[in-house]
Structure formats: structure tokens, C-alpha cells
């Protein structure tokens, strides 16, 4: 018994423990699917998909210090890759992932090479331009993308079996947990440290033997791969994608999610994504006073105000607030337990 307790304690301290528990909590949503409003489940799925994208983007901006506004076009690549491979070519899902990753790597290299010359604001503008070009391309390749009117995905098949939305949700949860674990590994590895070093001081990093070129390319490639995987799951769940919807607005929302939550923490990114994408549809819409009548659009005002407040008081993201709270809680608990031992 003692041994089991010790073992459990050790497992609970493992960094992946939280991620796995989070995954199990999420499974409650598809399990109790019938008791929840449809819009809630859909927006939860969307939030999770955007969370995968935001994780990759956090690596780019939080660790690499590279601002990019091309994220939405990477998601679009993922959606169209899935459509093309499974609906047009009738090939299995694994090939869609493979082709999606290869496309992502190619695009990532292009964006990465741009980032070698330009930094900061200017990089953001150039990536915005590149993504606009890609959106125009999507509009014109109507065989693969459905052109201006967009395309509907017939059904998501895995190993020859067609999956329901609920089953797809489970797969998305697995992808989220895997993405969290891989991100954690990466940011706590020499790669993550090298990215931070290059962000802090380019010359110091190079003097330490870090090839800045290599790591910037890696950062861009990883973030595009995450975005494309997110896009693939978006298409598998939402089943509709239109080239022109993947514009600046979504890129900016993902940027806001990462900044609001805290770009250097996985949980921070989750909180940020929830505030930007999930809060409105999952919480405010289910409150009758806000969602109906005159106040129908009031929820946007609330989330906008929240963003302003967070940026003003917690420049390192909402995760700073949560850390402070947990620290206070812990110190209170330890004080109380000390008092008990004294008395």
C-alpha cells in the first residue's frame, strides 16, 4: 500500500500528468454529448483545434520572438490537404497527414527564410502578404479547394470506417494531449533554450555555437506543422472550409490568444485560446440574458474588454494571474498547517 502511494505521488509530479488528466476531463464533453447544447460541443472542438495551432504559434512568438500573421493560411492548407487527399484522391487519412506535413515544411522553410532578413513588425507584415497570396491561390485552385464558394468534406474515415463527430472529438482530444506533451518536450530541450537565446541576443547565441538560421527555420517549420495538423482536424470535424474565411482575422485572434494567455506556458496558451475562442460561444451564449434580444452581440464586448484588462495589468498573460493566485493559496495552506503544528 505504501509503495503504491509513493508511486502515485511520483506519477502525479510528472509534468505529463496534468496533460493526461486534462485529456480525460475533456472526454466528458463527447461522453455527455446528449445533455449539452450542440453549439457548446462544436465550439469546444473548435477551441481545441485552435489550441493546437496556438501551441505551435506560441513556440514561434514566445520562444523564437518571431511575429507572424500567416497562421490562418497554414490552417487552410491543412483543411484543403485533407479534402484533396480523402475526397478528391480517395486516399487514406495517414497520407493526408503525411502530405499536410510535407506542405507545411515547405511553406515553413519559405517563411523561415523571410524571417532571416526581416524582424519584428516588418516580418509580421511580410508574412501577412505571403498569406494573402496563398488565399488568392486557394480561390483559384478550385479543384482542390472548391474555389470562392468553399468546399464541404464528405465524411472523416479512419481505417475504412466512417467516424461520427463524437468519435472525431475523441481523436482531437488525443491530438491535443500529444501536442501538449511534444511542446513541453521541445521547450525544455536544447532547442527551446537555443530559441530563447537567439531571441534575447542574436550575437550571444551565435557565440555560444547556436546557428540562428537553423533554429529560426525549425521554429517556423514546427509552427506550420502544428497549424496544418490543426487544419486537418478542423476539416475532419467542422467539414467545411472556404479560402476567403482564412484571412487576417483568424491569424490575429490566434496572436491575441497567445499574448493574452501567456506565450511561454502551455497552460497559459490554453487559457488564452479559451478566452478568445471559447468564452463567447461556450459560456456567454448559454447565459440567456446575454445571448438573446438586444444584448445578442454583447459577448464580444465582454471578451474585448477582458483582453484590454489583461494586457494592461498582466503583460505576461493570464497565466501570471493564475500563478499568483496559486502561490497565495499555497502560502495560506502552509501557514495554516504550520499554525496547527504550533498549537
Amino acid at each position, binding site marked *: 500500500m505504501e509503495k503504491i502511494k509513493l508511486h502515485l505521488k511520483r506519477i502525479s509530479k510528472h509534468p505529463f500528468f496534468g496533460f493526461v488528466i486534462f485529456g480525460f476531463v475533456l472526454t466528458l464533453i463527447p461522453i455527455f454529448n446528449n445533455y449539452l447544447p450542440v453549439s457548446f460541443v462544436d465550439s469546444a472542438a473548435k477551441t481545441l483545434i485552435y489550441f493546437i495551432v496556438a501551441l505551435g504559434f506560441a513556440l514561434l512568438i514566445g520562444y523564437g520572438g518571431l511575429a507572424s500573421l500567416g497562421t490562418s493560411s497554414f490552417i487552410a492548407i491543412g483543411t484543403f490537404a485533407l479534402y484533396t487527399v480523402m475526397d478528391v484522391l480517395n486516399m487514406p487519412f495517414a497520407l493526408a497527414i503525411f502530405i499536410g506535413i510535407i506542405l507545411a515544411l515547405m511553406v515553413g522553410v519559405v517563411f523561415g527564410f523571410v524571417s532571416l532578413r526581416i524582424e519584428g513588425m516588418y516580418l509580421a507584415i511580410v508574412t501577412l502578404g505571403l498569406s494573402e497570396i496563398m488565399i488568392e491561390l486557394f480561390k483559384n485552385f478550385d479543384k482542390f479547394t472548391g474555389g470562392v464558394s468553399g468546399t464541404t468534406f464528405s465524411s472523416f474515415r479512419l481505417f475504412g470506417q466512417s467516424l461520427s463527430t463524437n468519435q472525431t472529438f475523441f481523436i482531437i482530444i488525443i491530438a491535443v494531449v500529444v501536442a501538449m506533451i511534444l511542446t513541453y518536450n521541445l521547450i525544455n530541450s536544447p532547442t527551446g*533554450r537555443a530559441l530563447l*537565446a537567439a531571441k534575447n541576443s542574436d550575437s*550571444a547565441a551565435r*557565440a555560444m*555555437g*547556436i546557428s540562428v538560421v537553423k533554429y529560426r527555420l525549425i521554429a517556423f517549420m514546427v509552427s506550420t506543422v502544428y497549424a496544418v495538423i490543426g487544419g486537418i482536424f478542423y476539416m475532419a470535424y467542422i467539414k467545411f472550409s472556404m479560402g476567403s474565411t482564412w484571412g487576417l482575422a483568424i491569424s490575429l485572434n490566434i496572436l491575441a490568444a497567445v499574448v493574452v494567455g501567456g506565450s511561454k506556458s502551455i497552460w497559459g496558451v490554453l487559457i488564452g485560446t479559451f478566452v478568445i475562442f471559447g468564452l463567447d460561444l461556450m459560456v456567454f451564449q448559454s447565459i440567456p440574458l446575454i445571448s438573446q434580444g438586444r444584448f445578442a452581440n454583447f459577448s464580444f464586448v465582454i471578451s474585448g474588454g477582458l483582453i484590454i484588462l489583461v494586457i494592461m495589468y498582466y503583460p505576461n498573460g493570464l497565466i501570471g494571474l493564475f500563478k499568483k493566485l496559486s502561490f497565495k493559496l499555497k502560502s495560506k495552506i502552509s501557514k495554516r498547517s504550520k499554525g496547527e503544528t504550533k498549537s
Partner: protein
Amino acid sequence: MKRLIDIIRHAINQFLRIYYTKRLLKLNKKKVFNENEITFKNYQIGQKRERLLNKVDTGDLNKEETIKKQKEIEKKIENELVESKNIIKQKNIEIEQKISKIKSKRDILQSSLIKKMDIDLNRLKEKNQSLESVIRDAKLENKKDDNVQSIDLLAEKENELVHNIKKIDIIESRKKVEQNSNIHLSLSHLTMNFGGLKAVDDLSFNVKKGEIFGLIGPNGAGKTTVFNCITQFYKPNEGNIYYNDNNNETNSLLDFKVHDIINLGIVRTFQNVELVWELSVLDNLLVGAHSLYSSGFFTQLLHLPKIRYEEKVLKTRALEVLKKLDILVYKDALPYGLPYGVLKKIEFARTLMTKPNLIILDEPAAGLNDAETKDLAQTILSLRDEFNLTIFLVEHDMGLVMEVCDTICAISFGKKIAIGSPSEIQKDPKVQEAYLGGE
């Protein structure tokens, strides 16, 4: 046509030679890592021994039995130690084999390079002789009639002659460095222009192995530019920098990129401390050890045993270095907000992570108070002796320079004005003039 082929062949040779040299340097880094591995194993097995001994020593058992068990454990531990050392030795032997293989390939290329250098040298010398005779003739003629055109021509020729002599000297100094293994770093006719401004002008000096070499000069003399040229942040317009690594192989630093320089065993610090502010002190040291990691991207992504092991080994090294510099207490702190003296020490510790041969310190005492400066001087001296380092520093604090340096080179406006021991430099009238101004 033949010349074109020659040029292409030379370029390919050059590329391959540098490629092989880089491979060799990487393998050398693996050797350094293995050295760290030995200390790590010692530490790990030592801990295991203590744990096992504690388990046995419950006190209740009768003494003879405990002693017997303890002896058994000691024996087991010793065996383990020998075994792990053997494994590492085996690894080293494998690395050596690889090194000798690559070296034989590279040496062929190297010899062709030296041959080409010799040919160049002969050509330049012939050219010089003809130039000298032309100038002599022209001078004789000039005495007869003062022709402006011919005077201009003469000046041009003379310039070319001087230039050629410099080129010959640059090539010959490589040979000198090759033959003299006591020289660690050699600057030969280094010149760096920024537009019209000559930041470094025809600077040459040698840094010997194991000495502390100081570079001094008034503000704007070009000291930091010299550093940046050595570490390849700037590519000099003229001249060359040669470096003898710890295997006594001569390399021209101009062949390398900035991030390869650390693999040669040269590490630098910066004028204003350049640490990673978001990482703890320990992680900052691991950034310094970046070139010792050999695991690839996917190993890191999946956190496979190899990367875990490397992290453990290098963490023990980091702790060892921190302990040596007396800053072990700060290991988990963020560098932000720590005293400036500690930050300087952290940066110093970071350079020590890769076991370098040459450390370049850019104004180590800037911003320190008197006590901290004295402490720094002590650390520099003791570390030099302990790790067999050569230290090359730029400094404004004359007290520190005179105290620690074996040789000092004074420069002003990019030109060398004096070189010698501290007492010689103090007496030198030119140095006094440069610092205090002429009459």
C-alpha cells in the same frame, strides 16, 4: 580555361577541407562530452554507493555482518566504476578511429592548399622583384626630368610593392604559426574598414599559450572590433587570423562561421552581460554547453533516453562549474535582478562549460566596484592555472590589466603603438601620449 578549372577545383577543395575540419571539431566535442561523462559517472556511482551503504547501516545488525556487506558493496561499486570507464574508453577509441579516418582525407586537401600557397608565394616574390627593378629604373629616370605622370606611376608601383610584401608576410606568418606550437592565436596585418573609417589598421601580434593577454587603448581605438574580427562577427577586409587548437593544428579563423568558432575552443563574453533573462542560471549554463549536445531534433521532441542522459551529464558539469566560481546558491534563480558582479561571473561560468582553450573577455571589469574587480582578478588568475586557459581581454581598468596580464598590447586609432610586459607599457612614451594627449 585552364585557370577557370583551377579556380573551381580550388573552391571545391576549400569547401571539402572546411567540411572535414568541421566534422573533426564535432568529434572533438564528443570527446569533451565524454570527459564530462566520466565526472558524471563518478558522481552518480558515488551517490549510489552512499545510498546502498545507508541501507545496510541500520545499526541493529551485528557489526561483522555489516562490515562484510559494506565490503561487498564497495567491491560492486568499484567494478561498476571500472566498467563504465571502460565503456567510455571504448567510445573514445571509436571516436579516435573516426578522427584518424577523416584526418587522412583532410590532410590530402590540406597539402594541396599548402602547395597552392607556395605557388602563390613564389609568384608574388617574382612579381616583387620585377616591380623593384621597375621602380629603380623609374627613379633613375625621374632624376633626369621631373615628369608628373611618371611620378604618379611610381607611387602606384610602390604601393603595389608594399601591398605585395604584406601579402607575402600574411602567408609566411601561417608557416611560422604552424611551426611554433607555443603561439595560440596570431593576428597578421589585420585591417577592418567601415566605409572610409579604418577601425583596425594593419594590426599584428601573437598570443602565446597559457598567458593572459591584455588589449588596451583609449575609447574608440578599435578594441572591440578586433574581438569581433576574431570571433568572425566581422570579416576583416585584409589580413588573416591563425589559431593553433589543442591538437596543435593551425586553422585560419576566416574559414569558419560565427557559430563554429566555439567548436575550435574559443569562447567570448560580452561588454554588457548577454544572458538569457527568461532562463534560470543553470539553464543559462546549459545554453553555453549547446555545442556539446549531439542528439537531433526528433530525439529532443520525443524526449528519448539519449537527450535525458545528455542533460544529466551536462547538468552535473554546470553544477561543478558553478561551485568552482562560488555561485552555486544562485543556480535556480533567474538572472534578472542579481548583482552585476554575479552576472559577470555567470557569464564567465557559461564560457567554461565547453572546456575552451581560449577565452575572450570583453571588458570584464566594466561596471564592477573595487572589491568585485579584485575578486574577478583572483578568479581569472586561478581559473587560468586550473583549466590551462589562455585569456585574451580588453579592459579599461588599468589596475586590473596591470595586475593580471602577462603581455599587454596598446592600440590607438586601430594601430599598434606598443607591446610588452606591464612595466614596459607603463614606461612607454607613446602609450602615455595616446592616453594623456601629446604636447
